[in-house]
């Protein structure tokens, strides 16, 4: 059992998400930083798609009610276990009654806590991810509240003194430009990729809202102004990574909790390899986008995938030989 003493701003159960139901209007959901979810799970001997806790911003406090192995990945929120510093990307043992406390991170937004064996939860539509909008998945379809308890599944994983790093992630976010016109002028599409954007504090699990950088106010005012329009389009399918341009001229990069269809013109699609990074961006942080070709996108995605595969195989080898 794991007791939620304090959930912080948003504490949810997430796995890799819900697939195969989009035609019924069901969102994908799932860990925003899927890289971090995978790494945390691998560190405690779980399948990489097992459900874990997504801690947003920090300020959470949890108590282990029975011994288990656990690992954190993603944002370093200066966590401690009964006062002992817990590093990101390392496997630890907890005793019954020990408390895991999260402070916060100045750099990143989301931290993942995986526990050996995972949680004893019934999947809904093929996933344990919490869909807070629709109200299903997770424990009761909502973010976790103080006082709630999560049952842990049994595990035969034996503690290993090991760690693992996330794949390298830096530089501009790559996207494939939208091939449909939607009535948007070419210069407007160019303006999007030439600007540096700032993540708005209004962002959430549904989407990353972008604003013009205030540092160069004159220029950026014209960027937002350039991008504003009065077009509305027929609803079309959207997915995590779709870049929407609402009439305000302030783009939204859709994230995992987004709806399945949308009525705003689209600017492009962030490549799969760069999606996990987006879930770590905090309000006020800067972000720039670089358009890539399908061939480049395929290479970048394969590179990212093979880094994750190498890590998974190396860890399996290490586990089998220990």
């Amino acid at each position: 059992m794991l007791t939620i003493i304090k959930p912080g701003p948003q504490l949810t159960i997430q796995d890799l998400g819900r697939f195969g139901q989009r035609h019924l209007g069901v969102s994908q959901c799932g860990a925003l930083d899927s890289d971090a979810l995978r790494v945390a799970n691998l560190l405690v001997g779980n399948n990489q798609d097992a459900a874990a806790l997504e801690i947003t911003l920090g300020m959470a406090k949890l108590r282990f009610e029975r011994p288990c192995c656990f690992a954190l990945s993603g944002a370093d929120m200066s966590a401690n276990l009964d006062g002992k510093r817990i590093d990101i990307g390392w496997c630890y043992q907890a005793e019954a009654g020990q408390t895991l406390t999260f402070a916060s991170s100045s750099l990143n937004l989301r931290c993942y806590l995986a526990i050996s064996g995972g949680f004893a939860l019934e999947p809904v539509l093929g996933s344990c991810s919490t869909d807070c909008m629709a109200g299903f998945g997770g424990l009761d379809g909502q973010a976790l509240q103080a006082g709630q308890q999560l049952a842990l599944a049994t595990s035969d994983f034996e503690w290993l003194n090991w760690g693992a790093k996330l794949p390298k992630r830096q530089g501009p976010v790559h996207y494939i430009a939208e091939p449909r016109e939607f009535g948007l002028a070419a210069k407007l599409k160019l303006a999007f990729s030439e600007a540096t954007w700032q993540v708005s504090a209004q962002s959430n699990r549904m989407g990353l809202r972008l604003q013009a950088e205030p540092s160069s106010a004159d220029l950026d005012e014209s960027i937002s102004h350039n991008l504003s329009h009065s077009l509305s389009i027929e609803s079309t399918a959207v997915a995590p990574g779709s870049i929407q341009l609402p009439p305000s001229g302030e783009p939204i990069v859709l994230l995992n909790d987004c709806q399945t269809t949308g009525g705003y013109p689209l600017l492009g699609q962030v490549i799969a390899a760069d999606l996990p990074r987006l879930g770590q961006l905090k309000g006020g942080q800067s972000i720039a986008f670089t358009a890539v070709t399908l061939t480049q996108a395929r290479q970048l995605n394969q590179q990212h995938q093979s880094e994750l595969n190498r890590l998974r195989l190396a860890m399996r080898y290490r586990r089998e030989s220990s």
Partner: protein
Amino acid sequence: MTSALPAPHFYQIDNATLVLDASAISALDKAQKQRMINALARQLLLQPDYVDVVSADQTLTLYGRSHLELERVQHHLLLMWQQFDEDSSQSQFHEIKVQYGGKYGLDLASVAKSCGLSEREVINIHTSGLYTVDFIGFQPGFAYISGLDSRLQLPRLATPRTLVPKGSVAIAADKTAVYPANSPGGWHIIGHTEQTLFDPSKQPPALFAPGDTLRFVEA
């Protein structure tokens, strides 16, 4: 079978996502194109190559399990498009019982007024139509249903309500809809149904699928 149906456009959105876009086909009417898209969607959902197949207004988006080769998929889809057979579509028919007006349909009076009709006439018109589920979006099980009589077509509310109760039967523009869950919404509420539209514990979880047809009957 009609030979040589006009071909839709195809777009590659990313390595694993393709869009079939029928919006530019002027030789077929909108309803016909939507029927073809939804018939295609039903067949493609059964194929293991795709994780998700999402119908929307005049478009069909395919999410591949892995890399999708535009030319190969396009060829395959065009064949299926050409072989569209009106009779073989596996859509279901639903009858939705609705309590109209009063506390069940907060906007019935204003809708009647705006349309220059009596409340009774609005109900009679709404219950006389045969409707089609064009696609599902906005929230789980929320169907965009076409076939609304032109006499009932109004723009959405200027200010959306923050809470539309689950089961609300509503209209806006050329569509009608039933809210599967409590949610914000800007459509005109004319009635209420007890029918469950979405239950994640059921298979399939949604009552309506794209391409289904339905009638509203007064409870």
